[in-house]
């Protein structure tokens, strides 16, 4: 469309002419978006603008909603149409991990939480599981804090630790993309800083899409930022450009706090 789309030849996730609805409620209108490989892409916009909905289309978790319908358009991951009839959503979700807004470890041990994805994938080899758990807990910068109490309940951890455990849990299945739906909205500033630091580390290995209400956060962690309004993608550009020199007046008004 006429939205200034950031088109990159190396785009990993490509959204084309994407229309999406919950029943009669048309949530996303004609989205065109390229998400580059091994970069952090932030989605910003006021509540109800459709940014979380789009995120939830990337791993087809919206399939759970009976009335969810893709009206038009495609999403491709590394060139493969993820909504094609032959795609197994379970296999897709192993490559596209997700971290939710409210940290929600299962009320089980830390180890069981981190190993959950391996367990359901049928990986029973204890050595492999233990190594993967350690590796993903290290990747989520949580290992040092929990290595002595892996078999204690995950609910004994602090909020920030619980969210990092959720990230470790997502990393353990070795995804290519990590989707984060407002991962810090329930955390204090110190825990938030740790998660942001972690996001910056993870971008070396993963393609990250992060939905955030916190514009400062987008500025700190994102390589490119996409601004959504009322189900439309208004602008997608390198983060510094969005924040310092937005192309659209709506973006400028939102960034400067006059709207939203």
């Amino acid at each position, binding site marked *: 469309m006429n939205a200034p789309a950031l088109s990159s030849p190396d785009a990993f996730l490509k959204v084309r002419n994407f229309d999406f609805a919950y029943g009669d409620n048309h949530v996303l209108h004609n989205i065109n978006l390229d998400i580059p490989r091994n970069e952090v892409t932030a989605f910003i916009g006021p509540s109800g603008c459709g940014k979380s909905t789009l995120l939830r289309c990337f791993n087809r978790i919206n399939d759970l909603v009976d009335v969810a319908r893709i009206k038009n358009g495609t999403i491709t991951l590394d060139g493969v149409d993820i909504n094609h009839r032959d795609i197994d959503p379970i296999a897709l979700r*192993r490559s596209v991990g997700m971290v939710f807004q409210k940290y929600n470890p*299962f*009320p089980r041990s830390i180890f069981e939480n981190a190993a959950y994805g391996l367990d359901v994938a049928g990986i029973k080899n204890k050595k492999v599981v233990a190594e993967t758990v350690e590796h993903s807990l290290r990747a989520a910068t949580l290992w040092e804090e929990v290595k002595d109490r892996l078999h204690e309940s995950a609910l004994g951890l602090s909020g920030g630790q619980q969210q990092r455990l959720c990230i470790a849990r997502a990393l353990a299945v070795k995804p290519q993309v990590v989707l984060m739906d407002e991962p810090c909205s329930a955390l204090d500033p110190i825990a938030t800083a740790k998660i942001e630091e972690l996001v910056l580390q993870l971008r070396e290995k993963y393609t990250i899409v992060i939905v955030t209400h916190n514009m400062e956060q987008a500025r700190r962690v994102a390589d490119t930022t996409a601004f959504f309004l009322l189900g439309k993608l208004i602008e997608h550009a390198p983060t510094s450009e969005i924040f310092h020199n937005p192309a659209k007046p709506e973006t400028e008004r939102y960034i400067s706090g006059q709207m939203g």
Partner: protein
Amino acid sequence: MQTPAQDTATPGTNPFAKQKSHRETKESLIKWTLRSATYVILIITASIFTHIFIRGAPVVFSLTPPFINTSFLTKLPETLHVLEDKQGKKYETTPTGVDVIKKQLGDNLRNEKTISYSGGGILGPIVGTILLVGVCVVVALGLGIASAIYLSEYAKQGKFIEMARLAILNLSGVPSVVFGLFGLGMFVLSAPKITSHPLDRSLLAIPLGFGEYISFEGWDTSVLAGGFTLAFVILPVVITASEECLKAVPQGFRETSLALGATKWQTIWKCVLPFAMPGILTSSILGIARAAGETAPIMFTAALAFKDKLPWQGDTGIMGIFTQSVQALPYHIYTLSARIPQNEYSERAQYGSVFVFLVLVMSLAGASVILRRKLRAKYKW
């Protein structure tokens, strides 16, 4: 310095002074009405328990060692014989002991009374009730949880599912004697069983080829038929409660599990059921305690007024625990209190049974409370 203090003390000028009105009287009247309603219930409950305890406890416990009347708990019911001699002394004895005492008394015997079912103990009814409840638990939890999972996790909400829910709710309004008749028609007379000699009245006998038939001739009056019937009595409770418990598990657990690449069944099995289980078990146990007390559903399907053998002592051996008819506590109490002439001896047996029965049911309820506490502590979020 005193002036301001006087000002606030002056009535009329105090802006926060209480307004005199009928409102307070009315409020306290309402409060006391509600309070007394609660107390009435408390008093009635307490008097039921005290009555049963005072009349029933002496049958089971005694003040002299060994303090517990074991024969009441370990013997089968039998006819009680009471012999009275001319001095007015009474001898209580069993049918086998009658002759010995008669010989001792000789001409001194003034009269002899027999009271059915009131002698011996109540082991038969206890065992029967436990077996019936066991079958009922397995069937009700199996069927109930399965359908609750379907309703809450799989079924697309729509007219048909609404109708299914309504049907289940209506089931709980069906009188239990209707369940008894249904059980008689369904499980006693027409349920399928595998046999080499189908009965003449079998509705349909399908040969299996190796000399056996699937014959729709029913399970006869048996623990199996009674347990299934009881299960249908409490199924609505189990299904409704289980569905609520499944719905109470945070949606986030399901989403997270699916996002980690779990299948729908893996999600339910590992991330929904374990967390819903405490609630399901608690409410089901309460339902089961109710089932244990039902008389009507087992009257036509499983219970006998009298039986001189435990189920596994018949010629069917250990399988008798499913295929034999049994005595059951509620039916035993009914027999003692409504089908034989009343006297002090039948009354004693009756209150003893009621007391034991109440203790059994209350320990089920107690178990459910303990179970809930333990599981809640383990799986809270």
